[in-house]
């Protein structure tokens, strides 16, 4: 990439030791060391068209295939997305969305039918997506108490001020406190496969492994309470908008209950942008040759608990397979192809310039 020349001025440095040793240092003569005389041996790279040219070509030649590879990979990822907010009157969840009130005891359920035209091989990841939901708003992001979530007992009963206005309910402190926890996404999504003879079968959804391992095992911890979560949380109140307290998030599985509930942990990792998706469930690949989700008709059963229309938000269900690079995103492939091509083109242009310039240079040298 760079033509280089080693500029070794070491001779000065070498006999310096000898000269400074012979009592010269007694008078004020400066030490003749390479460092003090600014003569440290140095590598002096020179970027010239000639030396950069090959680098450009090499980068181009490496990046373009990578880009193509990425693009193909991304294209091979199957992704299905369906909006179930219920904005228009003909959508199945219109009524649920319209008639939403916080204090209903009877959950509103709606069903969305959709068709997959292609089978989804391997594991399928089920995401819920929210739009125009500012999880990255500063007031929202800071409204949590990681000490409380880490099982700190003092923070459990006396949460951080940052949690305001979701810090206390009356005199009892809220656990988990703060706006993030309070607004936990609580729609329940159930997926059914409708096979050709109209028999409906529920697709098993795995709810473990959706949160970062370190979050689940280190960052989030239930307060100590002899294995009894109800007891551990007895001096706390449930968040205002929650239907049930934190120790009833997953009563069947103590490893997924309380603060270490994975849905909760996923929600607590605030999204970067106002349109985001969060992992909801995983559909494990079945053994054998049958695809995880064969093409055909499906039915999505939604327990509609989460209002988004008040702030003009949208809710989506996303089914996606995952490659080694993550979800479907053509950007990386395009970026690599673009940068690779730019490098390659620049290489060509530079080659031409270099060629011409050198000719001009040599001819210009003669008259001067």
């Amino acid at each position, binding site marked *: 990439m760079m033509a280089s020349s080693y500029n070794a001025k070491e001779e000065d440095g070498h006999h310096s030791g000898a000269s400074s040793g012979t009592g010269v240092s007694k008078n004020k003569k400066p030490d003749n060391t390479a460092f003090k005389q600014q003569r440290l041996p140095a590598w002096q*790279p020179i970027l010239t068209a000639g030396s950069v040219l090959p680098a450009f070509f090499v980068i181009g030649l490496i990046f373009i295939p990578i880009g193509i590879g990425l693009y193909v990979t991304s294209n091979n990822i199957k992704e299905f997305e369906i909006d179930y907010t219920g904005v228009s009157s003909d959508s199945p969840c219109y009524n649920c969305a319209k008639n939403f009130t916080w204090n209903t005891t009877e959950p509103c359920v709606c069903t969305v039918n959709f068709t997959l035209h292609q089978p989804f091989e391997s594991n399928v990841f089920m995401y819920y997506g929210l739009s125009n939901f500012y999880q990255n708003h500063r007031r929202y992001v800071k409204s949590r108490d990681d000490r409380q979530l880490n099982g700190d007992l003092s923070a459990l009963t006396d949460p951080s001020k940052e949690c*305001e206005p979701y810090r206390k309910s009356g005199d009892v402190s809220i656990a988990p406190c703060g706006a993030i926890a309070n607004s936990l996404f609580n729609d329940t999504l159930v997926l059914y496969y409708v096979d050709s003879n109209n028999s409906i079968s529920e697709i098993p959804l795995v709810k473990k492994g959706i949160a970062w391992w370190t979050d689940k095992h280190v960052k989030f911890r239930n307060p100590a309470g002899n294995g009894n979560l109800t007891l551990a949380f007895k001096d706390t109140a449930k968040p205002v908008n929650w239907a049930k307290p934190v120790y009833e998030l997953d009563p069947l599985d103590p490893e997924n209950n309380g603060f270490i509930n994975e849905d909760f942990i996923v929600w607590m990792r605030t999204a970067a942008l106002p349109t985001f998706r969060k992992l909801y469930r995983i559909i494990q690949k079945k053994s054998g040759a049958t695809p995880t989700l064969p093409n055909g008709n499906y039915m999505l059963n939604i327990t509609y608990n989460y209002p988004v229309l008040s702030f003009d938000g949208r809710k989506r269900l996303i089914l996606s397979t995952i490659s080694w690079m993550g979800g479907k995103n053509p950007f990386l492939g395009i970026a690599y192809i673009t940068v690779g091509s730019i490098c390659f083109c620049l290489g060509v242009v530079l080659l031409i310039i270099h060629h011409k310039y050198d000719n001009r240079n040599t001819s210009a040298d003669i008259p001067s």
Partner: protein
Amino acid sequence: MLRRRLNRWFGGEDRRVDSRTIYVGHRPCPANEVFIPPKFCDNRIVSSKYTVWNFLPKNLFEQFRRIANFYFLIIFLVQVIVDTPTSPVTSGLPLFFVITVTAIKQGYEDWLRHKADNEVNKYRVTVLEDGRRIQKESEKIKVGDVLEVDEDETFPCDLILLQSSRDDGTCFVTTASLDGESNHKTHYTVPDTERDVESLNATIECEQPQPDLYKFVGRMHIYKNNEEPTLRSLGPENLLLKGATLKNTQSICGVAVYTGMETKMALNYQGKSQKRSVVEKSINAFLLVYLCILVSKALVCTTLKYVWQSKPGQDEPWYNEKTLKEKETNRYLNMFTDFLSFMVLFNFIIPVSMYVTVEMQKFLGSFFISWDKDFFDSEIEEGALVNTSDLNEELGQVEYVFTDKTGTLTQNNMEFIECCIDGHQYKYRDASSEVDGFCVTDGPMNTVQQKAGREREELFLRALCLCHTVQVKESTEQGQGQEDGRIDQVDGLMVDGQVVPPLQEQRGFIASSPDEIALVQGAMRYGFTFLGLESKTMKILNRTNDVEMYELLHVLNFDPVRRRMSVIVRSISGETLLFCKGADSSIFPRVKQEEVEKIRMHVERNATDGYRTLCVAYKHLTPEEYDQVDSGLREARLALQDREEKLMAVYNQVETGMNLIGATAVEDRLQEEAAETMEALQGAGIKVWVLTGDKMETAKSTCYACRLFKRNTELLELTVRTLEYPGKRREDRLHDLLLEYHKKTVQDAPPAKTRVARNWSSQDFGFIVDGATLSMVLNSSSENNLHDYKDLFLQICQNCTSVLCCRMAPLQKAQIVKMVKNSKGSPITLSVGDGANDVSMILEAHVGIGIKGKEGRQAVRNSDYAIPKLKHLKKLLLAHGHLYYVRIAHLVQYFFYKNLCFILPQFLYQFFCGCSQQPLYDAAYLTMYNICFTSMPILAYSLFEQHISIEMLLENATLYRQIGKNAMLRWGPFLYWTLLGVFHGLVFFFGVWFLFSNPALQDNGQAFGNWSYGTIVFTILVFTVTLKLALDTRHWTWINHFVIWGSLAFYVFFSFFWGGVIWPFLRQQRLYFVFANMLSSVSAWLVIIVLILLSLLPEILYVVLRKPRGPYARQKKLVQSSAGGIQSPRSSARPLLMRTFSDESSTVS
């Protein structure tokens, strides 16, 4: 400072009477019925600024007076008070760091001062009290104490000499530590006091303390047994200054008159005014731009926030309710706090650490100057001295060099060349075997080949022997070098086997001016040897080896205004004679005119040859005349007020109607490589002005010898001589000449661009002006066109390659410098000088350089940089200055750039988070970015970078022009860096933004959150910014490698560490395992790589396409141009005289 002010307030009474009265030995005097012990400050020297108690508040106060620190303090306070997105730690920590480092540095410096103060203050001195000798600490000395000081001790305060162990009531001191003059100065006791100090009953009345070392006025009343008090005048010759050292005298007694902070030494140690470099001014300009960017960013965001909030459901959705407090506060107050919050969020765009780094770079970088072995002069065993590190880069920006002639361009190593007596030229020839080693050359002037009359000859030589203030160095003194050897040789030539006193063989002379030594030695060659001054008697060994004795009656001291000195002596025969020597211009009007013409020719010819000439005159004084003079002088010396003026009047009165005897010529050799240095400076596009007090002819020939004027240089003269034009008033003539020269140089000259381009053109102009004319130009206030004159003059000067200003008073030198400094485009000026007369211009110029020459240390003390020889100026400017400028300019631009692309993504993020001041990066990253992750590489760069090697910089002076006029910190480059920063910021943010359109970036389908977003952007940022610097680095020493790769590694290590632990002191564990998870994602890796590359692409392209390509191409080009340009004038035939002159100088060196 404060102390003195207090003293002034409390000592108001003293002020009013304008003099102080001191009771010698605190003994009450009969004249005063009541003895009121007056209050004076004690003898403590306080050069330190702080005490243990006031250090913290005072230091903090001083630090926060700096605009930048104050700004950061405000930001910090806003963070503490207002609810802001980043914790106060993020800006508090860097500020704390900066303040602490500075405080430690200043504290250390102050501790050193304290130590030095203590050393002085606790020094044991002997005080005579009631007839006993008491040892006291120096700080306990009170005004009026009688002290005893032994040989080789320094005086603890300003003393009036009362008693000396020498019989003649004199003592010798050296003031080396005050003004650097190492000769022994003679001081005199007050007459009538020396007999018995113990019983002395006297008061001293003297002026209030003032800083002039050479001025002192006072008088002493001596009371003796109820007699009428006798009155004695006191002058500087009676005053022993604190800091001076007693020499050749066993002990003295003296009474303290000024103590502590009121001593002349303390008063002279006032801090110099701070000089600011252009780079600092550029920084401030850029800061202003960035402040505007900052404010507008904050304004935009605040506006957008309220626009966004006005949409229904956005301001307060159900999931994100406001707190009660937020709801209740006033809407406009909220807006204001929002604005402040945005300011805080973006405040990193103005880099705190830049100030630290710049300071550190300057401080550390200046060591390279003092370490440079090329600046080491084996003769004086000293290297360069850096008095200030603030101006390193200014050395690379110099456009005008003002140089002194004597001692700077020339060696100030005088040698007597020839003399002229009554119009006959005498030239000393070593080789000649004539009886008296003294011959008449057959110069063209000598129409009659004969010597002047023997009497005149001897009179002339006697005058040389008597009219001076030279002292004879005693034989016990060490360090008689070559001088003595030379003298021995001469002695041997003269003495013809006669018995010579053994003392004479080891005779050395000490004088404040080397001219005088040269003259005395010259006289010695011709057979008149000055044996010394003993109790007011000067002894001369004449040609017949008889000792002649002269009583020294008065010395009319030399001063630069009169430009002459005289002595009045009485010979054995009772004749009273006045001998006077001085510059021709000051002597000729005072002698009989018919004698002048014969001598004038010689003087002018000598001056053209580059010699320093002095004229010698004498006068017989009749006893009546003498009595008149004597009483006049005594009266003037006793005067308490206006003593100087009165003395001057008497001097001028005496020195009239003299007889001119002859003139002397003394050669002052050129400094080593003076011509080469000047040529290199001119090649670097620097205009060199010579400002000298010397005669025009002498200075002109020096200029030719230094190649400042060349054969083809057209000289434009504006001197007293050219102003004399028949039939015209001088003012009119001045007007005409100015217009004519202006036409020649400015209007007819090709436009500036082409003039810069051609290197050594056919038509160079040299401009010569003298002091008298200059003051006419500058002070013609009666005329309306004053402004015009000054302007015209300046324009002419600026269009000449070299300007010679001769016959300059020290203040005029400073005036010239100031005039150029304040002219259009405010060019950077540099003054070089070696003597006290150059101090004013050294202080006035942007950069002051002192030469560690022979004329004392005044210049060195007041300079910013001191070098042993003029030739070192070349490397100082062309290599060090150039490199420092490039380094610091790059440092500044880089700092602004890296903070712009640091903060821009944060700004852009506001559009995606509802303008809620959500920071993109974690607080730790915000804090550490400038302190740890990106500060060391740029510091190493700014210390070690050599984009062009030092050798090449020295070879090709023209390279200096490339950075002239602050080239790297103009708005153009600034815009480039800013755009680069913006581009990088956009790439970082939107690259990652596109990636996050699907935040499921891990192969297990898990999604990334906002802190991952920030960490990816930050990682790209740190790598890009560091690699960008790596691309700019042309000189990779192991330190650069270590620091660049080290800080990247440190970033990675730190991120792992920071994210790897649940920090108990943190409220939020935002970054817990974010970095590790990021690295586990292939997509993150890929995006980091591609974005870094994309960001650096334009930079690589820019480097490649910029012409000329690389130093080697540049070198090739330059060698060609230098072969065609610089070399040629050197080989061209110069006038014969100049060639011999400079060849001579080169053989010497």
